[in-house]
């Protein structure tokens, strides 16, 4: 059996979801992963989309977060202000799923602009959507992002959604109620925040990769920039400053 790196990433994300969890699902890979989980090991996973559909059970993968199949199969459809105010904000959601154009070593996410000047960006991205409050208020956040030098940067050009800020304790100082990004799932493996430094650290390598590529170091070895695996895989997971991009 073979699979693509993309599929592996989706499978890894699906596996991270425990049955019965309430999951705030963004479109694209998060939705694919959440639906995969619900159809396999987590039949009671509660899918919540920011369009206001609670407990959606789509039998086909939606293209948008507001496809008809979500409303038709949901336990409840509520107005958009309600989904943010009554359901997300008070911390009722276990897992928030986010993508990223850029992510930094502390799990901060940029989906706004590439470039130093917000008013004159090199690349204008779609923006925040629900992400800042998902990142703040879900009990845990899972980020799905392909590993690339463009995506994994030392410091994001723009903090759209806060991970661990500039290090341990920052979330508490900012009053963010959720734990922050507990897993970053890439096409190569899984990163988790170091319990002491809050820096993202490679803790798993997807199975196929161990055989087919030079393996990144196991858990612990990506703890800091100086000793991190990116030196060994510079084009895969380097924490570098972002360069010109056509994202």
């Amino acid at each position, binding site marked *: 059996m073979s699979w693509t790196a993309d599929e592996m990433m989706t499978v890894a994300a699906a596996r991270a979801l425990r049955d019965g969890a309430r999951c705030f699902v963004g479109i694209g890979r998060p939705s694919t992963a959440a639906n995969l989980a619900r159809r396999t090991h987590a039949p009671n996973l509660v899918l919540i989309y920011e369009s206001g559909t609670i407990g959606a059970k789509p039998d086909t993968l939606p*293209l948008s977060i507001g496809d*008809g199949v979500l409303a038709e199969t949901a336990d409840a459809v509520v107005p958009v202000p309600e989904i*943010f105010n009554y359901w997300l904000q008070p911390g009722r959601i276990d897992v928030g799923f986010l993508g990223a154009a850029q992510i930094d070593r502390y799990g901060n996410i940029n989906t706004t602009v590439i470039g130093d000047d917000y008013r004159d960006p090199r690349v204008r991205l779609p923006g925040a959507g629900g992400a800042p409050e998902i990142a703040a208020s879900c009990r845990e956040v899972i980020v799905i992002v392909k590993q690339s030098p463009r995506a994994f940067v030392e410091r994001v050009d723009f903090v759209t959604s*806060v991970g661990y800020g500039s290090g341990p304790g920052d979330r508490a100082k*900012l009053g963010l109620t959720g734990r922050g990004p507990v897993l970053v799932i890439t096409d190569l493996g899984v990163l988790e925040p170091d319990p002491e430094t809050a820096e993202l650290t490679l803790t798993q390598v997807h199975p196929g990769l161990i055989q087919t590529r030079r393996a990144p170091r196991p858990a612990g070895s990506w703890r800091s920039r100086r000793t991190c695996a990116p030196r060994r895989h510079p084009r895969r997971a380097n924490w570098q400053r972002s360069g010109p991009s056509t994202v």
Partner: protein
Amino acid sequence: MGDITSLREAIADLVYDGATVALEGFTHLIPVAAGHEIIRQGRRDLTLVRMTPDIVYDQMIGAECARKLVFSWAGNPGVGSLHRFRDAVQNGWPRPLEIEEHSHAGMANRYVAGASGLPFAVLRGYVGTDLVEQTATIKPITCPFTGEVLTAVPALNPDVGIVHAQRADRAGNVQMWGITGVHKEVVLASRRSLVTVEEIVDELDPRPGAVILPGWAITYVAEVPGGAHPSYAMGYSERDNDYYQAWDAISRDRSAFTEWLSSHIGITA
């Protein structure tokens, strides 16, 4: 109130150059035909407000209707970027576009405040993000009971609010179901409003999940079957996902877009 009229007359009466206009619909029930009519009537210098400026705002921005965009997520859902929006922000084509950028939670609450006759709303949001520095309409507010610092955003009260819905009766009472997003809020927050509907019927028989907006809270109702396409009206049509995907190529290229404007809207740029 709840006057039934044509789309053309409603837009002509409501939307003027320089107005602040919100066309809402969270993926579902987007008033796309109304947006095209605004392009066709050649409105300029609009402040466009919308949580998810998708294809319809990409088109209005490319057609030079907008001076400013107030928004929280400007993408082609499930497809990628809005290239006309991006071209306006990055290159000022066809004209520079001022932006006022929020999160969904912030925008939704701004409509709630607007609908509630309050000058601002309070939420847990934005803290620690760079949006706070770039957007003047995000400020801290202190709870007078606990001393906790939260975030305030000002009310949105557009000059004109426009949404699409499934049905209205002859008194202009509107019925909608499925994902209703911020439909009620934007109509109630706006000084004047238009609801385009799939059909006008004698009687609105009750339906599970239906939301009713009384005609007396709406300025105009216009019958525009298919008026949400490529968005959809649950019970009447399906989302045209192919159109969203095909838009990417048209939107990427200025001349393809100009050609689309001319062939589909009848406008020569």
